[in-house]
């Protein structure tokens, strides 16, 4: 079966801005994966594909300014669906944080998790409608 193994947001320097795991790893393994993903993704340029083989899986990634958004999935899974899944997620973040930048993700790390859980759950795509997600986030925001 196919599902997302993890989602990572990293900057060029390799600092993790979000790590969401959908499979059990111990802490050392997580650190190793984070470093490996950074190493394989940052050497690629615009002429390369947005897909890269990774161990027995593949990483679908997209770069926005200094941030890499990476999703690790099974090799037979649909590349373009995840590539646009990333973009859909980024558009929601952009709307929610009003022109999102890296610092928003740092200072509001606990809110980013909420956004992720609205859109991806258990390694699956949960909700794809930006309108619905933002409406829900706005509602939650009003509960503060």
């Amino acid at each position: 079966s196919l599902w997302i193994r993890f989602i990572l947001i990293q900057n060029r320097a390799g600092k993790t801005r979000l790590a969401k795991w959908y499979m059990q790893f111990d802490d050392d393994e997580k650190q190793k994966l984070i470093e490996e993903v950074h190493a394989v993704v940052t050497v690629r340029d615009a002429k390369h594909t947005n897909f890269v083989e990774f161990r027995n899986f593949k990483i679908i990634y997209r770069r926005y300014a200094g941030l890499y958004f990476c999703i690790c999935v099974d090799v037979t899974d649909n590349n373009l669906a995840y590539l646009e899944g990333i973009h859909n997620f980024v558009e929601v973040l952009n709307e929610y944080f009003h022109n999102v930048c890296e610092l928003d993700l740092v200072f509001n790390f606990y809110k980013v998790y909420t956004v992720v859980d609205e859109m991806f759950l258990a390694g699956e795509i949960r909700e794809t409608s930006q309108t619905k997600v933002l409406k829900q986030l706005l509602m939650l925001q009003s509960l503060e």
Partner: protein
Amino acid sequence: MPAVSKGDGMRGLAVFISDIRNCKSKEAEIKRINKELANIRSKFKGDKALDGYSKKKYVCKLLFIFLLGHDIDFGHMEAVNLLSSNKYTEKQIGYLFISVLVNSNSDLIRLINNAIKNDLASRNPTFMNLALHCIANVGSREMAEAFASEIPNILVAGDTMDSVKQSAALCLLRLNRTSPDLVPMGEWTARVVHLLNDQHLGVVTAATSLITTLAQKSPDDFKTSVSLAVARLSRIVTSASIDLQDYTYYFVAAPWLSVKLLRLLQCYPPPEDAALRSRLTECLETILNKAQEPPKSKKVQHSNAKNAVLFEAISLIIHHDSEPTLLVRACNQLGQFLQHRETNLRYLALESMCTLASSEFSHEAVKTHMETVISALKTERDVSVRQRAVDLLYAMCDRSNAKQIVAEMLSYLETADYSIREEIVLKVAILAEKYAVDYTWYVDTILNLIRIAGDYVSEEVWYRVIQIVINRDDVQGYAAKTVFEALQAPACHENLVKVGGYILGEFGNLIAGDSRSSPLVQFNLLHSKFHLCSVPTRALLLSAYIKFINLFPEVKATIQDVLRSDSQLRNADVELQQRAVEYLRLSSIASTDILATVLEEMPPFPERESSILAKLKKKKGPGNLPDMDDAKRNVNGSTEHSEKNEGSTYPLTDLLNLNSTPSAGPSLLVDVFSDSSSPASVDVSEENFLRFVCKNNGVIYENQLLQIGLKSEYRQNLGRMYVFYGNKTSTQFLNFSSSHYKMDKAVDPVIEGGAQVQQILNIECVSDFTDAPVLNIQFRYGGALQNIAVKLPVMLNKFFQPTEMTSQDFFQRWKQLGAPQQEVQKIFKAKHPMDTDVIKAKILGFGVALLDGVDPNSENFVGAGVIHTKNSQVGCLLRLEPNAQAQMYRLTLRTSRDSVSQRLCDLLSEQF
């Protein structure tokens, strides 16, 4: 729309994050963190009760510190307290902390589950979702036990809010993945299928994922989903883009849902119902048609979303492999993408076309794109795209285009990236063999391979060329002539020397008539390479020399001189020395007749599947994420076997007798909890099972035909077992397979007489267990089918990590574990002499740390360790009290879980 300012709501948190960001050094950061930790600790311990806001803020800071990579060993209780707050923001931070820092502390789990239970029952959709997300994120067995029966009710209840349904569906999916045994099918399954009809597309999206996963496991239970999925898909693809407002993404109607529906349909064969089938075909045609329409937007998002659906539709068409028109249309569409300016599309088209090439309906259509693919090989900048081009050329190769494709691959090999050379070499070797009409072409191709990429030519490849030359007398003269010419090069690859030595040793006589390649010239040519070669190659050359003595008596004296020299007869390498001595002696005392018999030409090899093909398949074998790093690690058999094999690795014996069988590649995870009953009514052998409790290596099974050796290693909750199958007979085992439920076949189907093959099993301990997995082995020996089932020695204690502790700690823990069900004790008679060193070795082998000076009675043994399972860790203490007079032992086990205490006691008490 909402816009969030920096850390709004929690000023203290924002200040702290800023401070950390301003730290100039790692030391400064650690200092600042320690200061904060001290502050938080004092707040938590202080007399003043903290309000919810402060608690939330401090827990959030702890979380931030943890995410920076520091350990957090307190605050869990405060986080759990937040769960019962009735403020959303406080609850959210509590749940987030729990989800990120999963802790198996049993007291807390009970409290957490209690809070989740309350939230699930709250009828407040926001709280229900937080609780469901927590279960979906943690997915532990404890949670599955507590909630797996409740969630289906939430999912199918009529009054559940849509967003809660979405979360419930995926929550159930997660529990099904981690603890399938706890998520039994029931009445709800039929109702889940009907969620495909739900008005809310978000619910349909989540439900489709759940149904797909369940359908993969039990397709029959979800057959009705096919018609509903087709209906839904049909409504989406024929909708105008404004119909599905919220779910239209850059003018594409519900792309992700379409992809998921198409995935679900790939769990099933084409629908048998004609109407349904034609409706599905219409959908697929519509998707293919849309690809030809002018784009509704120039944005890449539009084309990506549209093509995501298109590629998934093509996957379904290939999966069905039944509609020639659709297959050919798919191929034409992909053909257009091959020249697209987007690298992503070219890559995906090459990848997808690879599978189309294997369908009889579209193979010819794929072949028409050969020139484009060849040019991709030469011009693509991204190595992974070139790799796909190689794959596709390989897949589209047949007799009609083999010569061209092989030539292109060979020329690409000259400049190919090192990372993919070995694979290209294998592919070229396979194609050359498979499509050779004229074997001179085959010989030329392999020698070219060695010339261009000798370092990447594995043993399998050059063994194979020798087998083929030996089996085909029409090519032997040509092969001898060609290797002779190739060897003229001043620097030639050692693999060429091997092939050359072997072939001239067998067939040098076929070219000896020409004075330019007279026996002496041949010998001198070979011997000129001798000193630059490694020991195995020299050994092979010595064998070639003795064969020369038989073929060409006129060079006997010359060769004997060489064999007699000190550098041979007194060679430091025992194999070379032995060969020199034996060959010299043989050539001196044996009569011509005896020599001719002993050194007769090699008999033809039995026809069989190319071992190279097996190797390529292995390279592509499945695997699992955590093990990839070690996949290339090659262990040369257990000690008792490798001794037997030594010395026979030189290719004078049957070349296919690959004693150094390459690792069989990582096989799928063996889930120790999967159904381990053996399918056939074969008695499961477990006679040696208990001998492996305290050791990891040895022979687990042996009968007159087969010996099975094991070598295993464990780390935390993961293990790897190398299984060695040794054929004790002189006859082949055919159709050999060995498997455990859920595990792919990963062994060569043929084991030669006297040979050994290796299989690797990866093991994961999900939670504590009693039953061991069973390995089912089948093979044919002399026509009779043999069935063997062996209980693999995977026991709970294999997942021990030893723990050192002081006497004080030990007794403190011992007291804590004093509840009656936590302790299991057994008094039993000694079966073996009561030798202290042996007992110590067994306890250590059991996996715990042996604690010296802890027990006041020095005769007693105490040990401590932690059992690691995927879901939890269980601390274990043990004490063994021998009574030498009575020849009895008393064994006491204390762990936090009664089932663990019991199992460990049962296992260990059998050992003394």
